[in-house]
């Protein structure tokens, strides 16, 4: 199902950045909802990062950071992790020119995001720019429409996986930013 024109060869991609170092204190936190930890220095770091992600300039790092924050939240928030408890899903989210390519695999209650090329995805989302993807996932009302109107986001495969990912993204926003 993968198409040659949108899937870059792995060697063309930049090295996958190492996950940002979690503030040491984060690992010592109880597995409680993130919202209850607002203000805690180790958590506030991620909240601020996510805030900038949503409300700052949309950079090419948008997807990467989103997945990073999502992985972090799954690790430390048990109730957020319940969203993927029995979920098996394979995603590819990439740009049309191949400069960004992320595969995301949900399995065994875990999320694994990487640059690894996969061809048995359930859904593939190709987007034109980070702003469009951000609107597609997070924005209210007209912005969502605009990304569709401008044909900035193209989905192939099972659209229900996109709906579920959309929920995960917005639930993350709710938990981190209230």
């Amino acid at each position, binding site marked *: 199902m993968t198409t040659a024109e949108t899937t870059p060869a792995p060697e063309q991609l930049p090295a996958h950045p190492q996950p940002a170092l979690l503030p040491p204190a984060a690992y010592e936190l109880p597995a409680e909802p993130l919202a209850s930890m607002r203000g805690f220095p180790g958590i506030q770091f991620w909240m601020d990062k996510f805030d900038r992600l949503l409300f700052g300039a949309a950079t090419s790092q948008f997807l990467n950071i989103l997945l990073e924050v999502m992985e972090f939240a799954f690790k430390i928030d048990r109730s957020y992790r319940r969203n993927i408890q029995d979920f098996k899903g394979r995603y590819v989210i990439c740009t049309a020119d191949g400069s960004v390519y992320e595969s995301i695999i949900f399995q065994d209650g875990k999320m694994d995001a990487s640059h690894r090329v996969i061809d048995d995805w359930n859904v593939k989302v190709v987007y034109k720019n980070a702003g469009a993807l951000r609107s597609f996932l997070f924005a*209210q009302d*007209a912005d969502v429409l605009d990304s569709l109107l401008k044909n900035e986001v193209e989905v192939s495969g099972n*659209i*229900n996986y996109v709906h579920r990912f*959309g*929920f995960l993204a*917005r639930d993350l926003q*709710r938990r981190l930013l209230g």
Partner: protein
Amino acid sequence: MPDITLPDISLQSCQITPRVAHLRDAYFRAIPEVCTERPLLITQYHKDHGLLHQNKISVLQKAMAYRHALMNRTPVIWHQEAYEKGCQSFSVNDRSYFAGSTTSHFKGVPLYPEYLALTLWPELHTIGERAANPYYLSESDAEELNASIFPYWMEDTLMELARKHYYPEDWAAKDPNPYPSPIKLMEYLVFFMPTKVNCVSHTIPSFTRAVNEGLRAVMNDAHARGEAAQDPAQKEFYQAIEVALDGIILYARNLAAKAQEMAQAEPDAERRRELLDMARIYAHVPEYPARSFREALTTIWICWIAVHLENANVGVSLGRLDQLLHPLYKSDINAGSLTAEQAVELLCCLWLKIGDHVPTVAQAGEQLFGGTGSNQAITIGGIDTEGNDAVNDLTYVMLRATELMKLRDPNLNARYYSGVNEPRYLRRLCEVNVSTGATPALHNDKAVITALMSKGDTLEQARDYGVIGCVEPSSAGRTYAHSGAILLNLTSALELALFNGKHRHTGMSLQISPPTGEPSQFKSFEDFRNAFETQAKWLIQSATTFNNLMGKIHQRYYPTPVLSALFEGPMEKGKDLIEGGATINASGMTVIGLADVADSLSAIQRVVFEERSVTFAELLDAINTNFEHDEVLYKRLGSPIKTPKYGNDDPAADANAQSIVTFLDTLLSSIENYRGGRYRVGYWSMTNHAGFGRLMQALPNGRKARENFASGITPVSGVTPSLTAALSSVGKLPAVALSSGIALNIKYTPEPDTSAMLSNFAASVEGYFDDMGGSRSGGMEIQFNVTNHDTFIDAVRHPENYPELLVRVSGYTAYFKDLNPQMQKEIIDRTEYWVSKGTALFYEPFELPAAERAVRSPRSPDISVKAPAAESASQPTPATMGEHP
């Protein structure tokens, strides 16, 4: 002679009672609540009985699932609580005459995870915060949907089942051409929308047997037929009918038991009496024949709930209720057990019940198509199967209930047969339009019956037509029409012809369809018309292919035992509706953008090929730059003086419109659907002329990029200064080519002399419907907005002051405040006529807030005049044809 005994057909003595006023206030105050009851019951049953991830679900399995859901639904007698904007609860103190509801809420959003409910997934925690049309959803219900319902349907929605079964294997293997598959075309949004991913629904069940014989008799009939049947599939089908009807009866019994239980605990004597009445009625109907008008209404209501448990709430319609219910109404009146006032009150309560649900519309959909109700049409008046006047006292009672309630749902449609129905009936229809501002829609029996007979209906079947959803006529209770199966953006066919099989929305590097030649090389207008027709044919074949594939998926996974039990045909054939069990089978395609395409063809014909004032290349350049560098050409193309425009009785322009509708009808009539029926064509757009418009670039008729298209079959706004000419152009279109219905949207300004206005109003309808001695079809349908420009403007600025302002969109009715800004603008900018003078009032185009400006303004500023000042709005200045470039 018509059976009219009412001393005053307008029933002015009937007013809203305190009971109805209380319910109506609560109805307008309440926001819809997402209901998890149906999806939870259906999901549980599918999980427990291994129906998910299967290759097929049988009709009996479906029937058992629905029986399970019906018998386990909460029996709600009176609702206690609802939610208002801001998600605050308030007490409803419901005292309706009708128990039960479509959802477990006072005003609910039923979810169908088999279809599109999963589109709400991203919004589960934010759906109450939408700027437009928010829904209430509790945290616990959101979590239930997220954890216990939606995950189970990820591979089993009908859309994904279609993808799994028919794509890419079937499509790509059979047609290894380089063009996008139908499923991909659908996903581009800009070509067509096949509604089978969301429903079939668009049809009219028959309640005749349920009311007159009771469901027990139908069950017995099914049992006997099943015993006699040899074919195992038929045996199973009849068994499924029994099971489904048993579920409906069990639901009614649960309501009866609950009412009885509440009565025993009720200290108030009046409330106790009402509860005991309900217990008695629900213990009897719908199982047994209705003995009174109220019992008949209850039968219909309970069956209606069951129909919606099975079928998504999109355009399922109720048919000719004034015909079905009149005998019981009359018998109650004659017996002295019912008065007209009581009948109006009962109908007001039923109308509110019918409107107790809204369809699932996801966030992006709200922007494109917001404000829609469930589009449940009721049909009144016209003639009977013998050709006699069918207007009766109950017709007027229903009109009065509609006039008093001013509700979006149900959508009232009135039939009129000139020369058979009385002139005072037509005048009353016009009067209700003036008082409600938007309803009922009027249908011309002569033209509709001709159209339906041209598609194979017998004379009696055609005379017994009812209206589906918005405006679609079909023989009631016997035609499985799915009249809105495909919404076709006709301007995309034009686009593909203009750009040799490519589309500016999907990018000029992608070949969407087979090339039909560079327009700059065409030698004649006929060359271009041929290219357009070739592209339209390709697009329609793709759309109908997809619709038929989806139909096969429905046959495999979504049999409809409830609807089949309430329909003419399936019992006789021993076959589910979805398998072709109905007496008459059809599918409908509605076309969006007719006027813009017709005017574009006329523009090309005139300026490129006849006058040769611009080359095709120059024209393409102008539309590619959105006329930014060619104001002169823009004005010329938009001017009805310089360029022929449909809607001005201009032979050249009207010929192009007629050519298109004839071509499309001939083509669609030749295509078979998945049930052995044929396709029918209609021209009603709901809000899709705004939605599709936002996707499209500039067109040769002078429409700029992202502007709205003209609605339905209506000429383009702002270019038709004469009412008579506009009606004439539409009335000349051949009815036989419009068999799936049309929406002609006309806006009349309210006039100070109401009596004179009503006379002219009725005369305008008579003139439009007139077949001129057989020289033309006469207009098939017309619908109105009777609200002046200033009121609309004020309603945009102060929506809180107009919670009940009812408007005709393009087919259905809606509350103006619920429409998105683009649709509000489209309605404001529609050509407004002073009916007594027959001339248009042109206003300055309405300016949307900056963020919303990518929409159409009326064309031809050169024929616009400044809007009358507010104080002189009742004496506006008719537009005159001014100077043109």
